[in-house]
C-alpha cells in the first residue's frame, strides 16, 4: 500500500511536471504557427521556445518542488507520530495512544504500536502488583521467621549467612554481651549477616565438616535435598547444647540451589529426658531379666549362678558370687565355691547385718576394708547386696571389679531391687524344695499305701478260702507296718476272742491265754471304741499289752461291718514305734477291707456249697436246660441240653440262642427269638410253654416240649430267661400211632367185621339159605381170617420192635416163596392183566434166614405192586447176590409214589397219597423194614410218580454150610 502510494505520488509529480513543461511549448508553437501560416517562422519559434522554456522550466521546477514537499510531508506524518509515541514510552509514559493518519502499513504499525503500548501498560501494572505482593510476602515471611523460637538462617552458596531471624540476632547479641561482659567492654550490634554459618551456629571459626561432622548446608548444596542432623553446639555459657538441624534447599527457577534455609532446634532437654528414660529402661530390663532368671528356675545353685553372671555382665564387673547365711554356725557360705566366712567383720557380713547395700568405688583410695577376697585378688571396687527374704536376710550377693568403679544411684537402686528379689526368690525356692520334699514323701507314702491296699484287695478277691485270705491280709499289713507280730482274733458265738490267724517269726512265743484277752486288753478297747487303739498311748489305764508282754508298742484295729463286729487284728512291735494319723487311717481302711473280705469269704463259701448243689441238680436233670441273658446270649447250658440239641456245650455257651438253636415249628422255620418264641416271651417277663419241632445238626427231627420263664434277681430286675425242654419225640410218635391206629387200623378192621356182623345178622333173621348160606359162611370165615392176619401183622411187628420176635433161621427156599406169591396173586394178576416176572439167581439158593418172614416180606412187596398199579402193569421180582449181599428187588410200572411220601413209607400206619382210594393198614412196609432189620439188612425205595417203584432189600449174605445142613 505504502509502495503504491509512493509510486502514485511520483507519477503525479512527473505528470504535473510534464504538463507544466510541455504545455507552454505547445501553446507557444500553436500561437506562432497560427500567425504566419504560410511562411515558416520556425527559427522564431525555436527562439521563443528557448526563451520561454527556461522561465517555464523554473516555474515548473518550483511547482514540482512544492508538490513534492507536500506529498513528502504527508508521507512522513505517521513516522513522526510513531517517533513521538516511542519517545513517550521511553520516558515511562505508558499512557500513550497514537492516531493512525493513514490506512497503509504505517497506519497498521501505529495501531500495533497502540496495542503494544496497552499491553505494556498492563504488564507493567501486573509487575507492579506482583512486586507489591512479593514485598508484602517478604514482610510476612520475615514476621514468621521472627516469630519462630528456633534459630533460622538463610545461607548462600558461599556458606555465608544471607538472612537470619530475630532469635539468631538475639542469641548473637547475648553472646556478644556475655563475651563483652567477660572482657569488660561493651558490645555493639552483633554481626550475623555475611558471617560464615559455622560461626553463627557452632560458634566455631572453622566449618563443622572439617571436624568430621556432616555439614547440613554442604549436604543440601550437594544433593539438593532436605537434610536432617543432630549436632552438639556450645551454648552461650559454654554448655553443650544439642541441636536438631533441618536444612532445606531454596531453588531458583532452574532448580539450582541458590540458598539453604537452616533451622536449628534446641533439643537438649528432650535428649536429656530420652537418655534418662533409656537409663530407666535399661535398669528395668536388667531387673526384669534377673526377675526372669529368678522365677525361671527352682534350682537354687543354677539361679544364683545365672543372677551373678547377668549382674556381672550388666555392670561390667569381673567376678561375683553369693554368700548364704548359715545361722547354726554363724557363718557365711559361698554357694558357688562352698567357702565359709565368719559372720561379722567383712563387707558381705556387713551387708547381711545392716541389710543395706555396701559399695567400694576405689579400694586403694577409700582405704582398706575387711575384704574377704585376699590381697592376691587385686580388687579395686566391689559391692555387696543383702538378699532380703520375708523372714530375714538370707545372705549377700557380691560383685568385684579389678578397676575402680563408681556405682551410680541407678545401679545402686537396681542392685538393691535385685537383692530383694533374689532374697524372696531364694526363700521361695527353699520353700518349694521343702514342699516338694514333703509332697514326694506324701506321694511315696500314698503309693505305698495304695499298692498295699491294691495288693490286699486283689489277693483277698482272688482267695477263695477265708484262712488263705486272712493269712495273706495279715502278712501284707505286717509287711506294710514292719510289725514283728500280727494276729487276727475273731469274736465267736460266746462273745470271746479266738485266735484266727497269726503271723510271727516266733510262733512259739505267742502265748494266748484267754484270760489275757479280757476287757482291759488292747483288743477289747479297740472293739469297744470301733477304731484303732495304740499302745503306749491309749488307754492310759491300760496296764499291759494283751498278748506279748515284751513288745514295746502295738496297735489294734477292730474289724467290723456296720454295727456287727467280726473281730480285731493287732500288730506288735519289738521296738517303740510312733503311729501317725495317716498310719491310723490306713489301718482303718485295711480293717474295712478285711471285714468285707471275711464276710465275703463266708458268704462265698456258703454260696459255693449252694452252687455246687445247684450245679449237680443242673447237670443231673434229664431235661435240657439253658439260661440266657437279656440279650438272648446263652449263659449256661446243662449236659442234657447238649444231648438233646446235639450241639456241644462249648458251642452253645456265650452265643446268641437265636444263632445256634433253631426250632422248626409247624408252619415254617422260626428262630428261638422270632415271633412267638417262648424265650422272647420269657425275656419280656411272661412264662410260657409249648411244643416245638427241632431239627438237630445231623438232621434228626425231634419234638420238644419247651417251657420258658424269666429270670428275676433279688432286686426284682429281669436278668435273663431260662428254657427247659424235654424230648417228646417218642411220646409224639406213640400219640401219632394211636391216632393213626384209630383212623387207619380201625377202618381196616371195619370191612371184615361188616361181613361177620351183617351176614351173621342175616343168618339170624333167616334171610339166607342153601348155597347162599354156605357162601355167606365162607365169606365170614375168610373175613375172619383176614382180620386175624391183620392182628398177626400188628403182633409180629410189635414183637420185632420189642425184640421179642423169634428169628427162625434156616435155609430160605426162594423158589417156593416165589411160587406161593404167584399162587396168592393169581386171581388179581389175571384180572388186571399184570405181567409178573420172577428171577432167582443160583447164588441166592443157599441163603440162610427166616423163611416165613422173608416170604411175608416178599408177599407184602408184591402185594403193594399189585394193589398200587393199573391194568397191564409189569412186576419183576429179582433175587440175586452182589458180593456179600443178597439183593431182593421188587420193581413195578405202577402208580409210583410222590417224593414227599417216600421218607415216610416205613412209618407205621402211614398210607400216603394213594391211601385215600386203597385199603390197607399202613403196616406192610413198616413190617418189611423190621424183617430186613432182623436179618441185619435194610430196605430202600426208589420211585417216580406215574412211572413205577423199585423196592430193594439188601441183606448180608449168610450161606448155608454143610455142617448146618447136616446138623
Amino acid at each position: 500500500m505504502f509502495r503504491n502510494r509512493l509510486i502514485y505520488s511520483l507519477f503525479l509529480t512527473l505528470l504535473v511536471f510534464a504538463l507544466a513543461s510541455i504545455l507552454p511549448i505547445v501553446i507557444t508553437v500553436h500561437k506562432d504557427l497560427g500567425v504566419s501560416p504560410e511562411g515558416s517562422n520556425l527559427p522564431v519559434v525555436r527562439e521563443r521556445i528557448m526563451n520561454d522554456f527556461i522561465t517555464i522550466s523554473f516555474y515548473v521546477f518550483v511547482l514540482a518542488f512544492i508538490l513534492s514537499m507536500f506529498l513528502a510531508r504527508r508521507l512522513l506524518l505517521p513516522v513522526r507520530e510513531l517517533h513521538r509515541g516511542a519517545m513517550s514510552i521511553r520516558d515511562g509514559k505508558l499512557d500513550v495512544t497514537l492516531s493512525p493518519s493513514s490506512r497503509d502499513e504505517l497506519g497498521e504499525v501505529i495501531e500495533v504500536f497502540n496495542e503494544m503500548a496497552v499491553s505494556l501498560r498492563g504488564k507493567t501494572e501486573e509487575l507492579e502488583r506482583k512486586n507489591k505482593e512479593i514485598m508484602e510476602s517478604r514482610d510476612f515471611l520475615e514476621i514468621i521467621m521472627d516469630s519462630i523460637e528456633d534459630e533460622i538462617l538463610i545461607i548462600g552458596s558461599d556458606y555465608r549467612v544471607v538472612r537470619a531471624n530475630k532469635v539468631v540476632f538475639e542469641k548473637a547479641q547475648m553472646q556478644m554481651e556475655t563475651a563483652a561482659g567477660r572482657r569488660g567492654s561493651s558490645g555493639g550490634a552483633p554481626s550475623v549477616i555475611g558471617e560464615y554459618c559455622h560461626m553463627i551456629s557452632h560458634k566455631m571459626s572453622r566449618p563443622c565438616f572439617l571436624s568430621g561432622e556432616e555439614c547440613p548446608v554442604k549436604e543440601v548444596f550437594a544433593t539438593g535435598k532436605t537434610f536432617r542432623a543432630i549436632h552438639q553446639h556450645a551454648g552461650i555459657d559454654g554448655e553443650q547444647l544439642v541441636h536438631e538441624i533441618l536444612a532445606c534447599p531454596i531453588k531458583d527457577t532452574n532448580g539450582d540451589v541458590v540458598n539453604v534455609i537452616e533451622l536449628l532446634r534446641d533439643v537438649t532437654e528432650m535428649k536429656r529426658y530420652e537418655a534418662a528414660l533409656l537409663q530407666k529402661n535399661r535398669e528395668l530390663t536388667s531387673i526384669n531379666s534377673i526377675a526372669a532368671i529368678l522365677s525361671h528356675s527352682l534350682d537354687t545353685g543354677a539361679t544364683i549362678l545365672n543372677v551373678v553372671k547377668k549382674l556381672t555382665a550388666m555392670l561390667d564387673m569381673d567376678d561375683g558370687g553369693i554368700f548364704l547365711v548359715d545361722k547354726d554356725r554363724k557363718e557365711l557360705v559361698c554357694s558357688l565355691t562352698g567357702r565359709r566366712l565368719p559372720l561379722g567383720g567383712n563387707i558381705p557380713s556387713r551387708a547381711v547385718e545392716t541389710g543395706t547395700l555396701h559399695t567400694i568405688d576405689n579400694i586403694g583410695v577409700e582405704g582398706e576394708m575387711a575384704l574377704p577376697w585376699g590381697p592376691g585378688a587385686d580388687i579395686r571396687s566391689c559391692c555387696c547386696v543383702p538378699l532380703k527374704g520375708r523372714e530375714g536376710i538370707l545372705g549377700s550377693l557380691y560383685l568385684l571389679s579389678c578397676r575402680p568403679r563408681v556405682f551410680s544411684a541407678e545401679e545402686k537402686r537396681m542392685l538393691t531391687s535385685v537383692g530383694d528379689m533374689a532374697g524372696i526368690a531364694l526363700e521361695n525356692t527353699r520353700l518349694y524344695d521343702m514342699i516338694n520334699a514333703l509332697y514326694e514323701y506324701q506321694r511315696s507314702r500314698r503309693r505305698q499305701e495304695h499298692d498295699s491296699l491294691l495288693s490286699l484287695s486283689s489277693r483277698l478277691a482272688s482267695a477263695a478260702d477265708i484262712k488263705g485270705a486272712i493269712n495273706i491280709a495279715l502278712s501284707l499289713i505286717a509287711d506294710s507296718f514292719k510289725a514283728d507280730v500280727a494276729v487276727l482274733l475273731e469274736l465267736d458265738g460266746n462273745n470271746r476272742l479266738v485266735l484266727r490267724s497269726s503271723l510271727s517269726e516266733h510262733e512259739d512265743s505267742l502265748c494266748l491265754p484267754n484270760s489275757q484277752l479280757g476287757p482291759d486288753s488292747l483288743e477289747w478297747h479297740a472293739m469297744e471304741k470301733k477304731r484303732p487303739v495304740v499302745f503306749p498311748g491309749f488307754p492310759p489305764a491300760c496296764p499291759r499289752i494283751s498278748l506279748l508282754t515284751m513288745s514295746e508298742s502295738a496297735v489294734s484295729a477292730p474289724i467290723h461291718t456296720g454295727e456287727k463286729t467280726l473281730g480285731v487284728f493287732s500288730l506288735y512291735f519289738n521296738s517303740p514305734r510312733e503311729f501317725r494319723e495317716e498310719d491310723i487311717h490306713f489301718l482303718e481302711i485295711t480293717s474295712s477291707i478285711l471285714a468285707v473280705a471275711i464276710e465275703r469269704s463266708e458268704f462265698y463259701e456258703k454260696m459255693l456249697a449252694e452252687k455246687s448243689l445247684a450245679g449237680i441238680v443242673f447237670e443231673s436233670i434229664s431235661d435240657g436246660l439253658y439260661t440266657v441273658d437279656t440279650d438272648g446270649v446263652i449263659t449256661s447250658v446243662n449236659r442234657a441240653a447238649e444231648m438233646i440239641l446235639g450241639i456241644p456245650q462249648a458251642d452253645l455257651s456265650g452265643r446268641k440262642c437265636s444263632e445256634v438253636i433253631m426250632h422248626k415249628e409247624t408252619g415254617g422255620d422260626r428262630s428261638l427269638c422270632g415271633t412267638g418264641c417262648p424265650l422272647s416271651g420269657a425275656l419280656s417277663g411272661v412264662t410260657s410253654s409249648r411244643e416245638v419241632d427241632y431239627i438237630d445238626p445231623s438232621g434228626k427231627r425231634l419234638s420238644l416240649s419247651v417251657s420258658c420263664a424269666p429270670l428275676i434277681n433279688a432286686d426284682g430286675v429281669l436278668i435273663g430267661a431260662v428254657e427247659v425242654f424235654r424230648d417228646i419225640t417218642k411220646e409224639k410218635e406213640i400219640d401219632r400211632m394211636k391216632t393213626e391206629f384209630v383212623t387207619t387200623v380201625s377202618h381196616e378192621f371195619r370191612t371184615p367185621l361188616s361181613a361177620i356182623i351183617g351176614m351173621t345178622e342175616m343168618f339170624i333173621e333167616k334171610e339166607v339159605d342153601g348155597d347162599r348160606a354156605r357162601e355167606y359162611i365162607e365169606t365170614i370165615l375168610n373175613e375172619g381170617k383176614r382180620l386175624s392176619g391183620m392182628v398177626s401183622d400188628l403182633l409180629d411187628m410189635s414183637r420185632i420192635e420189642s425184640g421179642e420176635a423169634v428169628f427162625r433161621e434156616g435155609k430160605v427156599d426162594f423158589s417156593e416163596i416165589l411160587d406161593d406169591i404167584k399162587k396168592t396173586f393169581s386171581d388179581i394178576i389175571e384180572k388186571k392183566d399184570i405181567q409178573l416176572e420172577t428171577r432167582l439167581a443160583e447164588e441166592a439158593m443157599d441163603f440162610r434166614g427166616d423163611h416165613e418172614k422173608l416170604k411175608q416180606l416178599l408177599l407184602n412187596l408184591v402185594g403193594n405192586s399189585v394193589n398200587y398199579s393199573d391194568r397191564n402193569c409189569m412186576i419183576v421180582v429179582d433175587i440175586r447176590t452182589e458180593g456179600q449181599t443178597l439183593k431182593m428187588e421188587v420193581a413195578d410200572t405202577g402208580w409210583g409214589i410222590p417224593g414227599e411220601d417216600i421218607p415216610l413209607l416205613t412209618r407205621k400206619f402211614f398210607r400216603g397219597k394213594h391211601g385215600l382210594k386203597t385199603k390197607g393198614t399202613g403196616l406192610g412196609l413198616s413190617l418189611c423194614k423190621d424183617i430186613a432189620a432182623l436179618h441185619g439188612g435194610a430196605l430202600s425205595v426208589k420211585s417216580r410218580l406215574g412211572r413205577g417203584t423199585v423196592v430193594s432189600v439188601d441183606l448180608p449174605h449168610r450161606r448155608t454150610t454143610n455142617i448146618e445142613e447136616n446138623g
Partner: protein
Amino acid sequence: MSKVVVIDDEPFILMMIEDKLKRAGIHVIALRESRDALSVIRRERPDLVILDWMMPEVSGIDICRMLKADDALKETPVVLLTAKGQDADKQLGLQCGASMYITKPFSPRALLEIVTKVIGGR
C-alpha cells in the same frame, strides 16, 4: 318198583346188600368197578345210590361229587357206606351231597330201613 345202584369193591358187601334189598322188593344193580358207576347211574336212573368210599379206581366221594354236579342226576339221593368212621370223614361226606352216612360194620336191617326211608321220602 324202586331201583337202587350199589357200588362197592368188596363182593361180599355187594352180595349182602343185594340179598337184603331184593328181599324187600327193591331192584338192586350191584357194581364192583367204580369207573363204570356214572354211566350205569345215568342209564338206570336209580332212586338211590349206595356208595363205598374207598375204591381202587374212582373213590365213592368223587362219584358223589360228580353226581351232584350233574343236573340230571343231582336229585338222586346218595348213601355213603364206608369204613371211615371219623367225624371229619362224615362231615366231608355230607358236604359232598350224601343224604346219609353209614359206617361199617353195619346192620343190613338198619340199611334197609334207611333205604326205604330215603326212597319213601322222595
